[in-house]
């Protein structure tokens, strides 16, 4: 299982406290994870990093709306697999819910 965290660095649409709290819990958990500054930017750049991130089996993503995340990957030519991907929405869900979802089943 892999974890991907998006910091949405270039806009203020994701609440700062939620972003920081989720990042702090990931950082403090001891797990390995990938963090990107901004998925939108990587998608616009068609960054090869997205292909590496999309190609990892079971993946839990902390970002924004699942529909946006799905098509951002698609727009970069690296669609997410149909199965095994969970997207947690930091725009609407609490840091508690997102962190619990990301770290579900992980020994912290």
């Amino acid at each position: 299982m892999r974890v991907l965290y998006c910091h949405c660095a270039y806009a203020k649409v994701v609440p700062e406290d939620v972003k920081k709290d989720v990042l702090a819990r990931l950082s403090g958990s001891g797990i390995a994870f990938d963090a990107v500054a901004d998925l939108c930017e990587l998608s616009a750049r068609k960054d090869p990093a997205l292909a590496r991130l999309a190609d990892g089996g079971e993946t839990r993503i902390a970002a924004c709306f699942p529909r946006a995340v799905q098509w951002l990957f698609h727009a970069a030519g690296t669609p997410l697999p149909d199965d095994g991907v969970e997207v947690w929405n930091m725009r609407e869900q609490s840091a508690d819910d997102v962190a619990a979802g990301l770290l579900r089943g992980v020994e912290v």
Partner: protein
Amino acid sequence: MSVKLDGKRLRIVLYEGDGAEPLEPQRRFETLLGLLEDGHSVTRAAPGGTVASADRADHLVIGQFTDKPADIAANGAGVLRFVDISDCAADDIRGTVASEISAAGGENPGGWKPWFPVIDYERCTNCLQCLTFCLFDVYGVEGVSQDPEGKGQITVQKEANCKIDCPACSRVCPEAAIMFPKYKKGPINGDVVRAEDLESESMKVDISALLGGDIYSALRTRQKDARQRFSTERDESKALLERKRCLKKLQKQFDIPDEVLMTLPSAGKIEERARRAREKAERRKERSQTMRDRGPVTEEDWGI
């Protein structure tokens, strides 16, 4: 402003595996947060975890090294640069990373808010209204020769041409298939599209109205009135005030930035643009038909 989207980026790895001491929790958090705020993507590598593969990417590996981390070197990475951050505060690490990236010929991120349309192809009906409507050549079509109808598939081709904070094209999409993930409200921000969204006036801007109807007429009339008032009264402040009032009203109604409204061409020019787009699509269709009639390309065609 010209935006370059193809600069070389290095993958940054905060390495805490074998051969390195883990960072103190608060320092780790501050380091990750600082690098992300600077626009970098960072992988935290730790024992027992799984992260995206190295895949020949160039890496900048930071950590409190006691030995060279052999497992990264054996993981298929491209050029590796190691930076020991044992004695660095989180803020210093940000500066060090930026310097190392520059020294490696890489590009430091930043300078552009990634604002561009993202198409939901499960909703898109390929009506090409967005292509016709967009004034900035953000959209294009691809796969014309593979399309039996010769129409091709709408795509976003020039993301950096998009006007920051302008969601106008999403409002002409009859299926709410165009998202701007950094927009404040749904469904344009990627939230689920509900039946009431498609009915909502804020989601439905009739393109025919934009091509000569209410909004454009209102803008032109107001601009004309403002110009007349300016020429008769010679009162620059009044004219500017009128212009601002007009733009504010339009901006509030459709959330369209001043910059975009200011660059609206005449209704005639927009219609001319739509006509050219239609002709271009027709020419593509004809070319595609010609290719199908000719049959497969032979060795002779290639001069072999």
